[in-house]
């Protein structure tokens, strides 16, 4: 049985202007110890999906209107807030995008690390402090023991993210959700943090969901990759497979838009972009959501009349489109 099974998740935001269908039918499955990368452009619903798993979204505007999230067999959407508190941090931990704001500026780093240890593991103050120093060491914070009583504003962005990671792994969770962990960091620091996450994952045997809009990040660290667009998963496959044989036109376009310095003459060529914008999620179209920007869609196609389903085009490779690459190749359509 998979560690995490998400089926048909729909999370909507009930706003004054209308209902935003931020996540509209997401299926995910993650085995213990594996890494799932979730990629997509801003606004496609990847963060909302992650927050929905842990039910961290503010309930008045947001609500999980349908679907199930099963972790280790337990249905998370049916748990009370108290029961969820036993899962959060202990079984499933999360790190967020902006380390500047994710830490409480008026509490010391030490407090923010030890409060987890004391609450979930019942450690007393002294033991918790020692363990905190070990954790900060493990994530690469120099002179951890002295810095335990420092406030977050004395740490740089990269260091703060390391602190967040230390907090996240402190109770040995089975699953770590990393929501754009490197987006706010300098490029040089990004690589370090990713390496750190990878090492820790192996050392502590955690499964990981890595959310990002950066395909390069995903290529390095993920076992499987899911591509999201406009609140839905449009393609999912093992990483190597996705990069070598993408099926969905959107995935192809994403890959094509990566700057390629290895081609014969990189200078003088333009970066490829995808024309158009994602659909308005307050009233999403009753058709394939990518159709307006899809180079292969035509008026008579089925995908314009009705939304295509997510289907398994090859073992382990799911795609939601009426124009997968392999079928196009067969039909002789020019890419």
């Amino acid at each position, binding site marked *: 049985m998979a560690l995490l099974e998400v089926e048909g998740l729909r999370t909507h935001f009930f706003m004054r202007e*209308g209902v935003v269908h931020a996540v509209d039918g997401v299926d995910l499955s993650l085995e213990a110890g594996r890494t799932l990368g979730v990629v997509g452009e801003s606004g496609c619903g990847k963060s909302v999906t992650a927050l929905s798993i842990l039910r961290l979204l503010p309930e008045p505007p947001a609500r999980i209107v349908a679907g199930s999230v099963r972790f280790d067999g337990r249905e998370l959407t049916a748990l009370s807030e108290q029961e969820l508190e036993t899962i959060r941090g202990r079984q499933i931990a999360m790190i967020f995008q902006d380390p500047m704001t994710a830490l409480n500026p008026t509490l010391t780093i030490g407090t923010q690390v030890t409060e987890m240890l004391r609450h979930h593991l019942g450690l007393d103050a002294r033991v918790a402090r020692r363990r905190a120093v070990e954790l900060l060491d493990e994530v690469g914070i120099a002179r951890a023991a002295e810095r335990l009583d420092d406030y977050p504003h004395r740490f740089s962005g990269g260091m703060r993210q390391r602190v967040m990671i230390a907090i996240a792994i402190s109770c040995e969770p089975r699953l770590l959700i990393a929501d754009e962990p490197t987006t706010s960091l300098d490029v040089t620091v990004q690589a370090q943090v990713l390496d750190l996450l990878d090492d820790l994952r192996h050392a502590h045997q955690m499964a990981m969901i890595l959310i990002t809009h950066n395909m390069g990040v995903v290529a390095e660290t993920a076992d499987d990759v899911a591509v999201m667009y406009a609140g839905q998963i449009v393609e999912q496959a093992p990483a190597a497979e996705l990069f070598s044989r993408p099926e969905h036109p959107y995935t192809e376009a994403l890959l094509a838009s990566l700057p390629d310095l290895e081609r014969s003459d990189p200078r003088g060529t333009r970066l490829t972009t995808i024309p*158009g914008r994602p659909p308005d999620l307050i009233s999403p*179209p009753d058709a394939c959501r990518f159709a*307006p*920007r899809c180079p292969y869609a*035509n*008026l008579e196609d089925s995908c314009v009349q009705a939304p295509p389903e997510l289907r398994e085009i090859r073992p382990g490779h799911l795609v939601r489109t009426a124009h997968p690459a392999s079928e196009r190749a067969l039909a002789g359509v020019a890419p």
Partner: protein
Amino acid sequence: MTAAPSTDLGRPPVESAGAPIRQSSLWQDAWYRYIRNRGAVIASVIFLLLLAYCALAPVFSPYDPNEVDFAIAHQAPSWSHPLGTDQFGRDLFTRAALGGRISIGIGFGATLAILLIGVSYGAVSGFVGGRLDNAMMRFLDALYGLPYLPFAILALAIIGTVNFWTMVIALSIASWFITARVVRGQIITLKENDYVRAARALGARWYRILLRHLLPNTLGVLIITIFLELPGVILGEAFLSFLGLGINPPDASWGSMAQDGRDAYRAYPYIIVIPSIAIATLVLCANFIADGLRDALDPRTRET
């Protein structure tokens, strides 16, 4: 607001997906947002009605507001006297309106004076910057927290007489500090804006920059400030008059009417209640209007 795929799918136009963009000016936008704020609109209507009442009631009233007639003193509200009569038999409906003229008049007068002083001070301080700004702000900080009532009382004592205009002066002298600071803050923020730099680069003179670029953009903040200062000033006048240090008979202001009614409130509460409710209504409306304006002009400050 449906984002339907373009009917012509050969070459999807760039704007086919997504919501349409509507061009409108800052003021139009603000107006739309203001209108949609129910509280602010209701408050504005009541405010205007109150102003109309104060302006028109005495004109159409059959009573002489100063005529004393003990025979009908202390009457409860009735058809002939909608708000009753006071201890001298004067019609309260008329007197409340007259009192309103004075109170609101002083309110607006002092508020405008506060704006004048505050804008001048703040604009000079913010615009010139440097050491002058430092010195001016230090001076302001020293005066900032001082309670306005003792100083207004002192100012009145210095001037010697108490009438409409001296009240305006006294109240404004004692209360301009906040506005000055707000204006200075605005000017400083705006000074760093690119379009000001552009104007400077084009060789515009300082007064041109100040008048044409900086001040118009502080207009929004100033309008909000009017409705934020107004309640304070009106209450200030009410307090002064209530204490006997403000408007004197036979002129009436809401504060002095309240003082009149203070002794008799046990038997005839409406002499003190009516002007107080009038003050409270005005203050409440001004607060709501200020909130509405703030939301309309800067939606980022809205609470969820």
